[in-house]
């Protein structure tokens, strides 16, 4: 049960990241390459709240959502004026800068040593100790993330995002504030992925900057591109593949020293192949051209 619980928690954490990026990429058509950094900021915000200030898990999650949203604003306010590859470059630079901040602000973040002893979450008197119990919390997180994605997709705001993605000029002509829509979409996505970071920190009990490097942003992007973007099912499929492939590699008995590299090579090759064979991803609606 513990093994399955662990797999499910990993799936839930990946799913939150993928659904969050889907709001930015799938609905707005913006390539955000700093999702791992915002995920990390959420994790650090929650960890510091719980270990230093002694705040309960629920308040720490609220702070993580706030920090995630604010961090997204920090990058989207200057970068929201541009789109396409320029937006991708801005977010890439933000990703690199955040990791450097996490490494350098040693008094606050512990620097390269990270933060240890992050307490197990308690909610309404129930302790989520162990992978099996934590899976209940992860299921709640999944449900919340899917609900938010579903609510955004059905809302007028979601339709505005799709309109801007499809034809920015037409949306402007109809009086839509493209810049503001992009900034708000990024803030919502940042809040969601920040919450995921808080759950990540409390699950593992230890965080350091290496968990939130640029490679992780590539992994999140891979999930969304592979599963497909512009709907809810694509990111779910992408997260499932992301969790499933390492488990399959484990069955094939690949040496553990090269297994992470082979996993990354498979994902990289999949990205290239998908651009030829199915640019909208396996189950997506937004075609990358």
């Amino acid at each position, binding site marked *: 049960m513990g093994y399955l619980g662990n797999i499910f928690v990993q799936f839930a954490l990946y799913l939150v990241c993928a659904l969050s990026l889907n709001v930015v990429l799938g609905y707005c058509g913006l390539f955000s390459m700093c999702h791992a950094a915002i995920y990390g900021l959420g994790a650090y915000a929650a960890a510091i709240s719980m270990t230093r200030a002694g705040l309960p898990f629920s308040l720490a999650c609220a702070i993580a959502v706030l920090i995630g949203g604010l961090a997204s604003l920090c990058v989207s306010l200057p970068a929201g004026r541009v789109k396409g*590859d*320029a937006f991708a470059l801005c977010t890439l630079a933000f990703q690199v800068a955040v990791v450097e901040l996490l490494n350098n602000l040693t008094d606050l973040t512990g620097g390269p040593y990270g933060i240890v002893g992050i307490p197990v979450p308690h909610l309404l008197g129930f302790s989520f100790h162990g992978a099996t119990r934590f899976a209940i919390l992860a299921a709640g997180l999944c449900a919340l993330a899917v609900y938010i994605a579903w609510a955004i997709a059905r809302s007028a705001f979601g339709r505005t995002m799709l309109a801007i993605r499809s034809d920015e000029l037409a949306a402007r002509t109809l009086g839509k504030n493209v810049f503001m829509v992009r900034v708000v979409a990024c803030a919502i996505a940042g809040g969601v992925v920040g919450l995921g970071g808080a759950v990540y920190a409390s699950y593992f009990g230890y965080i350091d900057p290496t968990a939130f490097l640029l490679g992780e942003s590539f992994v999140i992007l891979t999930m969304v591109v592979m599963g497909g973007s512009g709907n809810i099912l694509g990111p779910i499929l992408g997260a499932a593949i992301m969790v499933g492939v390492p488990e399959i590699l484990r069955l094939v008995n690949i040496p553990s020293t090269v297994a992470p590299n082979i996993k990354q090579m498979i994902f990289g090759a999949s990205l290239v192949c998908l651009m030829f064979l199915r640019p909208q991803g396996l189950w997506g609606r937004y075609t990358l051209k």
Partner: protein
Amino acid sequence: MWIQFLISGVSAGCLYGLIGLGFALVYRTTGVFHVGYAVVFIAAGYCQHVLEHNLALPHFLSSSLGLLFAGGIGVGFEWGIFRPLWRRGSTWSGPFVASIGIYMVFSNLAAALFGNTITSLGNTSTAFLSSGQIPVTKVQLAELAAWVIGTATLYIMLKSTRGGLGIRALQDNPGLAVVLGMDLNHTRSAIFVAGSVLVAVAGLISAYDIGVTPYAGLFPVLAGAIGMMVGGEGIVAAAFGGLMLGVLQSLTVMIWSSSWQQVATFAALAAVLLLRRPVRLQSIPQHRD
């Protein structure tokens, strides 16, 4: 003391400038935001190492073959991946995602083959050209020479040769250039070879200086891309943008510490975005072959 920082800033800026030139050459003409240049950056160093240490080839020959190999890889990406994608009507996001895939595959292949530790090409970084209060290393002089030769050659080529005219035509109005009989495939291949060689020269010098690791290429390529944005319109301007970025990083080290270099890079990018709208940073329309 400050002059030492200036020298090291100029030498780092020369590398960013060379990469920025290669990046701008491909980006301004074909619209590919080529993250895969990170692979080209490390390829020359690894090839040189294998040829000299495993096949015992002479130093100069192995370095030249390393550059040739990296140039070949660069044009191989164009032939094997980008050209077929353009034929399918891809604009910028397809090649961008494919180039991320290229980076993931080949950097992890290098990690699987050579390990994550630094592969050294020899202890040349300590070879001083001048002693006294302002020591200049041979590597720093090589960086400056490569920047001057690379920038001047590209400038003369773009201004004075028929091939350069074709590249400028592709940059300004690709549709008209094709209508007037320009061989699009030939010109794009030449662009990818020239861009890859520029990046490979930077990679090889960097490898001589600090060695090479599988993931060492991404940050310099990102810095080169930011240098291109800082430099502004035009291809050759990227060389000066990269140079300015290197000096800015060095000033950051002088005033604060080396830990804040990448934050300074991000700040430069944010300043560029806030103070002036980047010209032609959006994707350049592609034409089906």
